[in-house]
């Protein structure tokens, strides 16, 4: 019996940011999409560029390159659509990446106490040691309850706090 036989192989998506590669858990990703129009509007959350429309959903675009490699991506980018947890809730976020992604199976070495919060662990692939990312620590968002209830998908179902002035037609 070898040490490695006790370890479990897991699926990861390798993504490229500039010259560096990172990994995210495959079960927390949905798809890699070609560059599309980013809709921008005023807001105060750093690192959020705007939103894209994907399969009828509005997905925020979060640039993680600046934090991970120290600069924004300037080359042609794709978006890796990945899950981000907010307490009990999850939502998709679009991560700009450089080029194609790769699906691999590898053993995860858990992060140590000295690793940064955005490091979920490490894996070895193709002679490289690659960071596995914890997107919950890497992308903005609060896990706390928010002061206003979430909007409903159908506009007829309106939050009670909006009062008569906001009553649906």
């Amino acid at each position, binding site marked *: 019996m070898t040490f490695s036989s006790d370890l479990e192989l897991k699926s990861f998506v390798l993504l490229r940011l500039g010259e560096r590669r990172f990994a995210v858990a495959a079960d927390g990703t949905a798809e890699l999409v070609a560059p599309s129009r980013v809709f921008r509007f005023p*807001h105060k*959350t750093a690192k*959020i560029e705007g939103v894209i429309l994907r399969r009828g*959903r*509005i997905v925020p675009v979060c640039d993680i390159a600046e934090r991970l490699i120290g600069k924004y991506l300037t080359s042609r980018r794709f978006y890796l659509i990945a899950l981000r947890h907010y307490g009990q809730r999850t939502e998709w976020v679009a991560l700009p990446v450089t080029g194609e992604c790769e699906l691999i199976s590898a053993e995860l070495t858990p992060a140590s106490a000295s690793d940064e919060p955005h490091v979920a662990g490490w894996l070895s692939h193709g002679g490289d040691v690659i960071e596995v990312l914890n997107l919950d620590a890497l992308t903005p968002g609060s896990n706390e309850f*928010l002061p206003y209830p979430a909007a409903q*998908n*159908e506009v007829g179902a309106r939050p009670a706090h909006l009062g008569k002035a906001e009553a649906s037609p």
Partner: protein
Amino acid sequence: MTPMQAPVKSGPLRSEQIILFRIGEQLFALSSSSVQEVRSADSLCGGAYEISAPGVDKVRQFVRRGANTLFLVSGAAHFDLCAPDGILAFVLRNTRTALLVDSIEKMTAMTRLQALPLSFCHEERQWYRGLTALDQTVVPVVRPEGFLSDEELMKLDAALPPPESASEEPEAQDDNGDFGMELN
């Protein structure tokens, strides 16, 4: 990988009438039922008085309407946009806000309002009810109550001159043929 599902559509969708408007180049939406009046800023500002409240730079004028005080909020300053103060004023129902905007794009209807993604975690959560997709464009739907917080209203109230000093101010009227319309 986990497939990303399209939103589930449940039954016939209800629609909500909205006004699409611009501040600078930026497009916003607002429920038409939350707009009490649309006036030209000139006609509203004609009866306005200056006000300066610390930390509330987006409000520089107010008007009295009977017992009520309306604060003219610069939409450009509120959203931190590089644009001059708007030339139209939306008097927002059940608020003390008259919002200055640049133009009305059109009136239309939305059938879906998506909550603001949780990645947005700062003041914008007070600014917007959510986002809607119209003609393959995403438009933020503003929250009428989000232009002036309770704290800002307290500061503004504290900065108001005594009512008697403004008692001769005429209520803003459409007596000069200026553009103005009541909604709903």
